[in-house]
């Protein structure tokens, strides 16, 4: 009885309104009768409309209820792309590429359950007709209907996302481009799907920068988050280290020995220039990290003999020292708010993770256990810090919950695992590991699941994930 009372209250309100608004006597009579019927039914089936008991009778309605239930993956069907205008063999191949990239993007996100092709192959998608009911029967919530056709310079791709139950179009765009951009188009479609369901971008469009070994030299390379499209950035046959993405993804801060000493450089992706940005008075730079607003770079410099943290103003090239202590302060990482910087310091003896305000005040130590903690990385949400810690002689990736101080170990029994960095959506981590004998770049979920190597034809370390 109490369960139904808010609804009863609402129905009463409803009928009152209806009579007020609806002047047609027959209609209002029908409505009143129906409302009465409804009321009776509600009383008979209170369980059908299970609704929490109201604390406040003045607020009778509830839209949604959130409990502790686990979040389920969104089942989604991606049938083969339809043939659009003047489609041919090539467009069909490109369409298959696009379909497989969308599938792997959505699967990688961990938020979607892409129905296996064998399951949906039974559903016939005739030209322009999507059998939504068949897909819904297979359990799919969403259906990604793509069309690919040819247009004079390249291909034209339509990616439409439908809700299988209401058959409503949720999102859709048309892309035009060279067939070589197939993967890029697919990543964009996958990202649109991600935004449609979660409100946020995923990692589909993100990229990973890393240091690749080439003989005695180390060069900077960039690839898509999924390992495709590997490109070499520096070619100066010296040591190029610790690349860090600018927040807009257009520049990289890095350290290069091309002039003999380690110096700070900014690589500009727009014109391919590598500019020496070492501020005067703080040579011997290492480990730069870009501030979230893109205006400053924090780095460690040992020009005074003892490595300390400095801030470089990217606009005017001036620098300012923010740590002054005996012992080395290095591996800084900016918090997503831009207010704090996490770094490694051995001021207390062993290297530990510390946090300091970007102004240089309010220093505090974050890690208390472990013999060697290094390379802190702040999660995009600001609530967690990943770092590498030496356990039994080998480094592993740990994650510290900043608020509770709770530490979770993500890697174990797999060689050294170092240099963790977060994906832009905070759901994944990238790191380097020598578990197979030589160093490679790996990604994993934020809980340590699905550790996968990204294929590189060289030894790779020091990854950073673009924002």
């Amino acid at each position, binding site marked *: 009885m109490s369960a139904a009372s808010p609804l009863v209250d609402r129905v009463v309100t409803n009928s009152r309104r209806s009579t007020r*608004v609806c002047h047609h006597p027959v209609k209002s009579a029908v409505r009143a009768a129906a409302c009465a019927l409804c009321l009776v039914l509600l009383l008979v089936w209170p369980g059908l409309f299970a609704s929490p008991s109201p604390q406040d009778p003045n607020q009778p309605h509830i839209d949604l209820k959130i409990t502790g239930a686990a979040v389920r993956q969104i089942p989604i069907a991606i049938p083969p792309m339809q043939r659009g205008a003047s489609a041919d063999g090539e467009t069909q191949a490109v369409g298959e590429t696009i379909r497989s990239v969308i599938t792997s993007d959505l699967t990688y996100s961990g938020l979607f359950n892409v129905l296996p092709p064998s399951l949906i192959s039974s559903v016939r998608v005739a030209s322009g007709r999507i059998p939504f009911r068949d897909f819904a029967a297979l359990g799919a919530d969403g259906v990604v209907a793509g069309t690919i056709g040819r247009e004079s310079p390249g291909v034209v791709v339509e990616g439409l996302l439908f809700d299988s139950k209401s058959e409503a179009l949720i999102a859709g*765009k048309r892309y035009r481009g060279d067939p070589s951009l197939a993967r890029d188009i697919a990543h964009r479609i996958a990202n649109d799907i991600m935004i449609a369901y979660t409100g946020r971008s995923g990692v589909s469009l993100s990229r990973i920068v890393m240091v690749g070994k080439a003989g005695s030299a180390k060069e900077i390379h960039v690839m898509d988050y999924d390992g495709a499209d590997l490109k070499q950035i520096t070619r100066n046959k010296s040591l190029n280290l610790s690349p860090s993405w600018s927040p807009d993804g257009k520049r990289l801060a890095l350290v290069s020995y091309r002039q003999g000493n380690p110096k700070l450089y900014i690589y500009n992706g727009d014109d391919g220039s590598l500019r020496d940005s070492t501020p005067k008075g703080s040579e011997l730079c290492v480990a730069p990290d870009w501030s979230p607003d893109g205006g400053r770079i924090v780095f460690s410099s040992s020009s005074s003999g003892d490595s300390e943290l400095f801030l470089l103003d990217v606009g005017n090239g001036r620098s300012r020292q923010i740590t002054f202590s005996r012992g080395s302060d290095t591996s800084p990482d900016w918090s997503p708010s831009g207010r704090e910087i996490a770094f490694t310091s051995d001021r207390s003896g062993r290297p530990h993770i510390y946090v300091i305000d970007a102004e240089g005040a309010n220093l505090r130590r974050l890690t208390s256990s472990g013999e060697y903690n290094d390379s802190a990385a702040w999660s995009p949400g600001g609530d967690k810090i990943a770092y590498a810690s030496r356990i039994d002689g080998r480094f592993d990736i740990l994650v510290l919950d900043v608020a509770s101080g709770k530490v979770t170990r993500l890697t174990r029994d797999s060689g050294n695992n170092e240099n963790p960095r977060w994906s832009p959506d905070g759901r994944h981590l990238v790191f380097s590991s020598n578990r197979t004998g030589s160093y490679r770049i790996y990604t994993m979920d934020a809980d340590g699941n699905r550790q996968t190597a990204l294929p590189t034809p060289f030894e790779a370390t020091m990854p950073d994930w673009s924002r």
Partner: protein
Amino acid sequence: MRFRVRVRWSEGSERVLMGMAGFSAAAHLAAAVLLSVIPRFIPPPELPKTTIAEIVPASALFARAPSGGQQDATALPLSDSTPSQRAEAARKAASQEPPEKPAPRPEKPDKKPAAKKIDKTVPPLAPKKDKRETPPVEPSSSGTSDPVETQDTSRAPEPATSPGPAGISFGGSASGAGIPSIGSSAFPYDYYRSSLVAILQSNWRRPVAPEGVGQAVSCRIQFTILKSGIIQQPRVASPSGNDALDASALRAVYDSNPLPPLPFQYGHASVSAEVVFELTGDE
């Protein structure tokens, strides 16, 4: 050895010389232009992937642009339009060349499948609505005879109950303010509701349940979702008495901002939502 070049000066020579000078100037100019322009076409060692994919949002194909949060709210006066109008608009937008398109393209007949698809998919939206929502609520919805009609007038509340995942229940009603409630029939988008629940659930860090084990406590959070998915004015509408729960629920809403853009077929600028966060004792 010496060469002697004899230039015979005649009436025409001056013209020839001037012509040569002119040609030389033009050639130099052309060379300069080429030199300055060509480097732009030589791709730099690329860091950001240069994309030449042209993006035409679905607004060109459909009545409204959906994705990316960059839809234009003023594209079409869709609000409160009847389903047939909406279908008509969609059909028109679909069968015509989209206005943004620069030139009429020859494959127009080939594009028909797309148009056909749209014809098929958009109109069902409205009929689907009653079909989809009536079964669970047949009494009240048959009582209000026509949900579309009521939506325009008083937005009479109807419980838009739908089977959600375990633990989640949808209730529906109208909000006192002028904007429709997310639970009402004026917002017939189950997929959006389930996305919203999933997002809030994933962002909710539940506090430890209070002493009285077995007793469920809940608080109610109210907020408005704008067309772009931005959350506005979240507030605790009815507190649970457990401050930690209230704070965590409010925090979950803040952390979920922005939500996915509202369905582009939805005709209003915003929707109000009232969400109950419930801590069950057995956790």
